[in-house]
């Protein structure tokens, strides 16, 4: 008895709070007796702290304490070495937080941090990823649990025998998530119980980690994340800010708020690893792929293995009889890389979808047609049919909307005044997964309902989407439903990440609503509150392992200044097949947000590492460029009306990452079409274009 809330465009439930400034983020809750923490990063890359001199800092007005490895409260050595902060004199990477100053004001804390003197024994370091690094090794698996290497057929023989071959290497730099709200926490200890207001993507897992680190019961930890100023993966698990703040609050026995500075979040809270990717494609004279190989190299740290699944995209995207993928890692003296929007798929698709463009040119067929020709209904990796695969429909509809049909493939053949104009296309795909969740639904005597689940809305529109799903599942108009999320006292739920939030949360909400309706049916009209809970662990765990994917196609037109090499986006258009779309308003925003981040990756973003200091030198928003308002002239997202009964009760595939996957390749392919210059090392800066071509 759906009331039709799902599929309808609703404005965000918290919109009013956000436009009036009353939505409170992690360090915006008024707390009596609050103090301020300021983190101190290490000044060496690798080494050992030999002395911490806090005298000057402690003498500075307002400073209450300086925490460091010699005096900080002890943490349990948990499963996450990155979070074992202020526990040891060892420095693993530059920027590691080695001290925290607590003071009665922000100004005093900042000044105190400046006055902390730390001496180090510095050791030599290695911080630059190269394809011949002596430390290259084969990890046991890649994230989250994929095989490191795969092979079917005989790639070498298949490749050697093919009439058309492409052998190209692409490089991507370090990318920094840069949510607009830096990682920030307010922490309070009361009678051995910890309350944190924290900026994260999943309060349930943060609570579990804090309980483990501080060796207290999960019930004595409460994590509130009502409003979160973006995450893009970087707030996926408990991160340094929440640990440092909780340590500081315990140490000074007062509430503490600590926000990492913009400069401090370039690295220590995670970043997208640089990659070096060699892609080899072979086809027959008609462009039918016969051999595919994708060899990916990325970096991890010395304290934890993080193996970006860069080549996994290539395993299931296009078919060929001879196939091979490999991943190699190097342990460098760097902060551990972490999730950034579509980890694995995003850099991997940049390489494969760029190589497909190069193959299309080598074969002499249209790049849309090349992808259609190599479509497959059966997952080449698993050998089973996809539950649904609408890549071709996305390509065709996109081509039609974009006006691709009469495209002249000749590079550098269109001029508009001083601008060279070109168009590019790329495919996109991202797995559609779900994780176990729990939820609670309550019927109130006045006819209204309360739905509770510890989901997190980091800007995705999750709060609104779950509310719509709940209304339909309860069979009531959404106006009668109240939704509570973003607090670990609510039923446990998984992280907002991996494009599986809505799938996972709505599953539990639907089951709780169904259980509640059963109860109400049995008991007649309620006189008091009636509550039902659901936990989908068994159901999700018992789901058959089928290849479930969302798909998309990106179309891009750029113009390139023939004199300066400046690249401007004329228009970007994406068509996606992502299952059911719960809320067209917030879905469109998610998709264009992902596409824009892909544009940003292609043209603007680049973490520039200085090997002498083992750190990124452009660690602020003036020098680490992200796409701004003036860079986005026209961007459109469309989606297919897709039904897939093998997904989850809400029928959603997730839309948080599909928008970024392939987007950078479409931009790079358009730049090639405009200029005839193939840049295989992102970002496509004007100096690279002007350096290798006689543009004028």
């Amino acid at each position, binding site marked *: 008895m759906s009331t039709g809330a799902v599929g309808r465009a609703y*404005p965000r439930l918290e919109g009013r709070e956000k*436009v009036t400034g009353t939505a*409170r983020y992690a360090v915006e809750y008024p707390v009596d007796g609050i103090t301020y923490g300021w983190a101190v990063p290490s000044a060496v890359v690798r080494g050992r702290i030999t002395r911490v001199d806090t005298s000057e800092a402690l003498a500075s007005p307002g400073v*209450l304490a300086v925490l460091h490895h010699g005096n900080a409260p002890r943490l349990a050595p948990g499963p996450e070495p990155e979070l074992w902060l202020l526990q040891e004199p060892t420095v693993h990477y530059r920027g590691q937080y080695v001290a925290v100053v607590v003071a009665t004001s922000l100004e005093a804390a900042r000044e105190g941090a400046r006055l902390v003197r730390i001496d180090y024994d510095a050791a030599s370091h290695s911080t630059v990823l190269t394809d011949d690094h002596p430390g290259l090794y084969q990890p046991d698996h890649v994230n989250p649990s994929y095989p490191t290497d795969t092979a079917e057929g005989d790639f070498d023989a298949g490749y050697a025998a093919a009439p058309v071959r492409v052998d190209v290497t692409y490089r991507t730099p370090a990318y920094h998530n840069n949510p*607009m709200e830096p990682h920030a926490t307010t922490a309070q200890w009361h009678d051995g119980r910890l309350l944190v207001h924290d900026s994260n993507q999943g309060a349930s897992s943060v609570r579990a980690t804090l309980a483990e680190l501080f060796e207290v019961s999960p019930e004595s930890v409460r994590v509130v994340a009502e409003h979160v100023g973006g995450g893009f993966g970087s707030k996926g698990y408990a991160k340094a800010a929440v640990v440092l703040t909780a340590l500081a609050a315990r140490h000074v026995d007062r509430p503490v708020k600590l926000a990492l500075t913009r400069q401090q979040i370039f690295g220590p809270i995670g970043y997208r690893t640089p990659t070096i990717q060699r892609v080899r494609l072979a086809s027959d004279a008609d462009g039918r792929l016969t051999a595919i190989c994708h060899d990916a190299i990325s970096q991890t740290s010395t304290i934890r293995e993080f193996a970006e699944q860069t080549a996994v995209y290539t395993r299931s995207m296009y078919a060929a009889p001879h196939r091979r993928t490999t991943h190699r890692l190097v342990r460098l003296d760097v902060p551990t890389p972490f999730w950034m929007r579509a980890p694995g798929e995003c850099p991997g698709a940049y390489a494969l979808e760029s190589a497909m463009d190069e193959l299309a040119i080598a074969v002499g067929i249209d790049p849309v047609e090349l992808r259609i020709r190599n479509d497959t209904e059966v997952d080449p990796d698993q050998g089973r049919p996809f539950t649904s695969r609408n890549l071709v429909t996305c390509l065709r509809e996109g081509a039609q909307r974009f006006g691709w049909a009469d495209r002249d493939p000749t590079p550098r053949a269109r001029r508009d005044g001083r601008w060279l104009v070109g168009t590019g296309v790329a495919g996109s795909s991202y797995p559609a997964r779900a994780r176990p969740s729990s939820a609670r639904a309550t019927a109130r005597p006045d006819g209204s309902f309360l739905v509770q689940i510890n989901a997190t809305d980091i*800007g995705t529109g999750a709060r609104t989407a779950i509310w719509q799903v709940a209304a339909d599942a309860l069979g009531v108009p959404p106006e009668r439903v109240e939704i509570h999320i973003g607090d670990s006292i609510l039923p446990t739920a998984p992280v907002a990440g991996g494009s599986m939030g809505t799938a996972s949360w709505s599953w539990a909400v639907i089951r709780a609503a169904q259980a509640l309706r059963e109860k109400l049916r049995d008991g007649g009209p309620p006189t008091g509150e009636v509550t039902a809970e659901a936990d989908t662990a068994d159901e999700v765990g018992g789901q058959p392992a089928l290849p479930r994917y969302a798909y998309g196609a990106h179309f891009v037109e750029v113009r390139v200044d023939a004199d300066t090499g400046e690249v401007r986006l004329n228009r970007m258009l994406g068509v996606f097949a992502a299952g059911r779309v719960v809320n067209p308003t917030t879905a469109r*925003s998610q998709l264009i947000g992902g596409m824009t981040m892909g544009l940003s990756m292609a043209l603007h973003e680049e973490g520039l590492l200085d090997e002498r200091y083992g750190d990124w030198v452009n660690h*602020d928003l003036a020098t680490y460029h992200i*796409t*701004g308002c003036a860079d986005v002239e026209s961007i459109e997202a469309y989606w297919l009306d897709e039904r897939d009964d093998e997904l989850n009760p809400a029928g959603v595939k997730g839309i948080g990452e599909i928008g970024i996957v392939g987007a950078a390749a479409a931009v790079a392919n358009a730049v090639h079409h405009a200029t005839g210059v193939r840049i295989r090392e992102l970002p496509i800066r004007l100096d690279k274009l002007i350096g290798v071509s006689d543009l004028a």
Partner: protein
Amino acid sequence: MQGGPENTTTIDERHSSRVTFEVNGEPRQVTLDNRTTLLDTLREHLDLTGAKKGCDHGQCGSCTVLLDGRRVKSCLVFAVTVDGRSVVSVEGLAGPDELSPLQAAFIAHDAFQCGYCTPGQLCSARGMLDEVSRGWPSAVTDDLNTPAELTDAEIRERMAGNLCRCAAYPHIVAAVRETATSS
């Protein structure tokens, strides 16, 4: 357990100032450490947390407020310099329980996602529309002798100082355009 003895030293009179200024139409008086920025004054001393701290270096625009009607990045303004002046933050863009047309347009066009840059976008847009009404040109204005027409290119350029990592840019432009044309 304390790492050192309780530090009872406080900021003395030489390093603090009494600042009197108007915030969202109300007179306010605060005694502040001279190092305090306008942004931290609003957030930490007046519980006006609408203005956001995204970078604290004037690079992201999240802290934008109106100072005597003109948009400023409040993280770059020392509070002692606003004595006797007037500040409007996002909390003052409309009366209590009201929305300004711009705020309503932001909701209608879904011109934000996480919402963290939004107060800065709104104050910036308000200030920008006033600049346009005064005939101020921007970097993309072709003819400096006639008042600029508020094209999308003008809006994009004039709003380029406010970063949005969620990338709600086209919706921000649409909301500003609608507000400009209906007022």
